């Protein structure tokens, strides 16, 4: 598995991934270390925004013409690419655990919101990839960032706080639903249109 994953990992545009992740990690490190008046939700969400940019870039395929010819299923290749994104998700959850209880922040709410938004962005990027966009990272990243900033500065959905840093029943229900939907979307988008199972089913 590891041997097979290496070529796919080599095909990732690492320059698109590492830059935003470094910016996000720096912002998160600054705010967690107390340099920006203690861990503040605003800076945590901005850091998450940068991490989302890095994670969706894992699905960018500048060399799609070459990598598309590899004898591996689409799902397998996507899973291998998502291996590169997994440290970011794990890192976010660790950070949520670290700031749990500081300034009234809830680690579980942060972990749930962060994981949900990361996975939703990944699912959106993979849908675009399936629709033929080889580099969905910048587009999905920009729109996700705009949405995240919109939810951060305003409360666009009535009384529901979308980005939840404190315990809140509405968000506790929202983000697991988003997670399940994102996984369902990923299951559809990674399904190879020309897979043997599908061909058999059609027959």
């Amino acid at each position, binding site marked *: 598995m590891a041997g097979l994953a290496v070529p796919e990992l080599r095909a990732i545009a690492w*320059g*698109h991934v590492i*830059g*935003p992740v470094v*910016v*996000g990690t720096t*912002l998160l490190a600054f705010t967690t270390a107390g340099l*920006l*008046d203690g861990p503040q939700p*605003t*800076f945590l969400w*901005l850091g998450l*925004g*940068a991490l989302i*940019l890095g994670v969706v*870039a894992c699905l*960018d395929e500048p060399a799609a013409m070459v990598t598309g010819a590899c004898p591996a299923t689409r799902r397998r290749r996507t899973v291998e690419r998502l291996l590169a994104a997994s440290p970011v998700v794990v890192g976010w959850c660790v950070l949520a655990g670290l700031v749990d209880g500081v300034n009234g922040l809830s680690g579980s709410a942060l972990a749930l919101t962060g994981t949900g938004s990361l996975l939703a962005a990944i699912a959106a990027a993979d849908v675009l990839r399936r629709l033929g966009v080889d*580099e969905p*990272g*910048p*587009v999905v*990243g*920009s*729109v996700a*960032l*705009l949405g995240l*900033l*919109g939810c951060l*500065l*305003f409360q*666009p959905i009535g009384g529901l706080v979308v980005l939840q840093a404190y315990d809140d029943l509405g968000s506790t229900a929202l983000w697991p639903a988003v997670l399940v939907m994102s996984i369902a979307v990923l299951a559809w988008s990674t399904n190879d249109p020309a897979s043997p199972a599908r061909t058999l089913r059609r027959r």
Partner: protein
Amino acid sequence: MTTLTAARSTEPSPVLVMARIEAGRLLRHPIFAVALALDAWLLVSSVMVDPEPNLQRMSETWAILTAFCLGVGGFLAMYRVTRSTDASREVVAAVPVDEQQRTLALCLVCVIPLGVAVVSGLFTLIAWEPGPITEPGFYGRLPWADVWLFNVCVLLASLGGPLLGVTLGRWWSWPMAGAVSAVLLVAWCVSTGFRTTSFVTTLHHQAAPFTLPITGASSEETFRQGGSWWWRVPYVASLCALAVIAALLHGATDHRRTLLLRTGTCVAVLAIVLLVVSTLTGPQGVLLWRA
């Protein structure tokens, strides 16, 4: 000869023709469309559906909406519009206008977010009436000139964001540059919410492309930020001018490059002087209210 001259004079300038094309591309761009829709939705909501309780809250809501939707949204959209011609560079190069003219056309398009900001400001002025539950707000404690100058700075932010997008698009080809810069830009502006208790914090507050005159939660403490808004307006305007000059500098050669470099240096020095003056001459931070 006369006929030829007359015919030529009726032709629109190539820059204006290109600006019209680029304006269409900006208006059709999904990021700008999303930003415009969000701006309209939230503004109508806070003006008519659930009106803000006082002028300070209304002004701050309009300011944040304008800076975020038109400033940051315009920045991201113009960055992508500027970069989008990369794939067809050879075709674009065949057009009989040079890179500076193309850049100038893109800069002219940035007037659209400014126009939308002006219209949204006028709409707010005309349509807003405080709701049944009114709060006092703190604008009564500020000079009226400061309130109006703050609004001018907000309008300049809606122009400066897209202009910066053009500059970044010309100079930085990394695909994630626009989005990452937007994160840093917002982080910079948000960090000006800390109280201005010293020269350094006031300088930081005044240097940001967008900031609010009052900070703190109204339920705890409210603080009037230090610095002069009279000097801040020309400072932000000089940042906009710097963005245009930097964008035009890309691909400039010979005499034009020298001229742009000299002008850019003068404007940069002017911006620094204005920043220092705005930091030193304004009133110091004042605690307005404590619970």
